[in-house]
């Protein structure tokens, strides 16, 4: 009900297409170049939900930062619907592993950051309330971040992203620090939000099962500098069950790609 009102307020909230074109990227570490991405070619269709899997520190988060426009690739290009991404834009929002709520703002004021930064705060009050209701935090609107549990803080961070009506949602291990029960609930919430709103999602995760339960396509990356090792299409209907034999089989395939033969 709330989800539908949030969507109705933004009829154009379709997903956008993201196109990584032979992207390589390196950081400068004390004068030494540190290559993190090597020749990444990846197409993400509008409304698609893909997961990026790979060893930690391999450069998955860098891919998200490039898509968000926080950085430009060293070589190659990242396109949204055919045009090059030059700077951050609220239509592409990033949710970090840490909720990174501003501790000096209440939950509601944190959710209001996007509209406030774009100068449309006055007209967005109802959307902010809707977003809070969507993540079931309406009772904690005036709480400060230090008063929230880890799961609540991460839900607030999600609301802060969703209030901007994103066409692309970049999730950088947003559930990594949560306890397993909260994690299951949040996975369901992310899934149902995506199925209602229709934006494109790129999820970075360590958890093979999470990737298989949520995404339509799993991209497996190599060690740093990361290149695409393989890709697994998960063509199964939602909701999925973790004990579904097809999920179990694909889990095995992916673990082998990652170097575990057990």
């Amino acid at each position, binding site marked *: 009900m709330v989800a539908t009102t949030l969507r109705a307020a933004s009829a154009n909230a379709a997903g956008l297409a993201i196109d990584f074109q032979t992207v390589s990227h390196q950081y400068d570490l004390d004068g030494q170049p540190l290559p993190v991405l090597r020749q990444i070619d990846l197409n993400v269709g509008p409304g698609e939900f893909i997961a990026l899997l790979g060893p930690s520190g391999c450069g998955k988060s860098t891919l998200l930062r490039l898509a968000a426009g926080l950085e430009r690739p060293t070589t190659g290009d990242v396109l949204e619907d055919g045009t090059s991404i030059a700077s951050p834009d609220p239509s*592409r929002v*990033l949710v970090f592993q840490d909720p*990174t709520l*501003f*501790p*000096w703002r209440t939950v509601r004021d944190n959710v209001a950051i*996007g509209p406030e*930064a774009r100068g449309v705060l006055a007209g967005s009050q109802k959307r902010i309330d809707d977003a809070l209701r969507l993540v079931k935090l309406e009772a904690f609107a005036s709480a400060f971040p230090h008063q929230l549990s880890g799961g609540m803080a991460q839900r607030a961070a999600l609301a802060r992203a969703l209030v*901007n009506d994103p066409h692309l949602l970049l999730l950088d291990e947003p559930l990594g620090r949560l306890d397993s029960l909260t994690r299951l609930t949040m996975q369901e919430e992310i899934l149902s939000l995506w199925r209602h709103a229709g934006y494109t999602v790129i999820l970075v995760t360590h958890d093979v099962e999470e990737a298989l339960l949520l995404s339509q396509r799993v991209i497996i990356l190599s060690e740093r500098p990361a290149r695409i090792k393989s890709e697994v299409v998960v063509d199964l209907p939602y909701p999925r069950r973790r004990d579904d034999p097809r999920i179990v089989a694909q889990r095995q395939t992916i673990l082998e790609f990652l170097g575990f033969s057990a």
Partner: protein
Amino acid sequence: MTSAAVDKDAGRKSVSSAFARPVWKHGLYAAAAWLLAAIVTAAFPDVVPWGSRDVFVGLLLGGGAVLAGLAFSVEKLGGLGRGLIHYGPWLIALGLWFALWELITAKLGWMPKPFFSPPHGLLHVYIVDWQRILICIAYTARLWTIGFFSGIIIGFTGGVALGWSKTFAYWGMPVLRLIGPVPASAWIPATFFLFPTTFQASLFLVALASGIPVAILTASGVNSVNRAFYDVARTLGANNRYLVLRVAIPAALPHVFIGLFMGLYYSFAVLVVAEMLGAKYGLGWYLQFQTAYSAYANVYAMLIIMALLCSGLVKLLFVIRDRLLGWQKGVVQW
């Protein structure tokens, strides 16, 4: 059966509250101590006359009577009453201290005479010299207010610029690091001929003393803001102005307040020294002037006023900090 037991208990409770209402014992002891001080002051002659003795006796008797009354009514005063009960032992000690102080100064003359004054000697100063004291407070208040606030405004703005802009930091930080550790009082000889009036020189010194710690801590606060906050704000559509005003400054505020506390203390220190050197009126000037006339009672009387003013300002800054940084609870303890 049970209801009868409850009734009996309730009955006993009401009886005890009606007849044996608790007496605030510390209040009674304090009243006795104040009465003792009044007797010591009134009953024995002073070794030399100090003036205002009868007024002091009157105040002690009045205070004692109020305390005696409070001993039976303090419970009804709510929050104020709880505060009084907490400070009960202090009120007793104060009465005893007045009695002892009277004895060793005015009555027995043990303490060397021009240097030490009995409490009624200090009271006499307030009664006789209150006009000049008020003028001095006004002069100092003007100097401190203008100096401190211009100092912290410049320090804060400069600190934000130093913490935010690489160019500012490149040119500004070495200068600040070089000048920052020099005590503001070391500038006194130079400022008194660099500035046309001593008032302007004093203003500069107070502004310098309060501005530098604020600038340094604001810069380090802005510098140490979690970079992820900027990334979050930028992906949500924030421009640079928003990043400075709504992210960097609020995040740096805990550091800024440490700088403000340091600046406040330094400003008091340099303020009094500057006034001693070349002012017409002011608290520092008063101390200097009265010492020259061996009027030590005036010096002590003024020191008490300065203690109250300075600690009042520190308390005020604490209140403001708790208001603005209430969100810190559970994040940082200091």
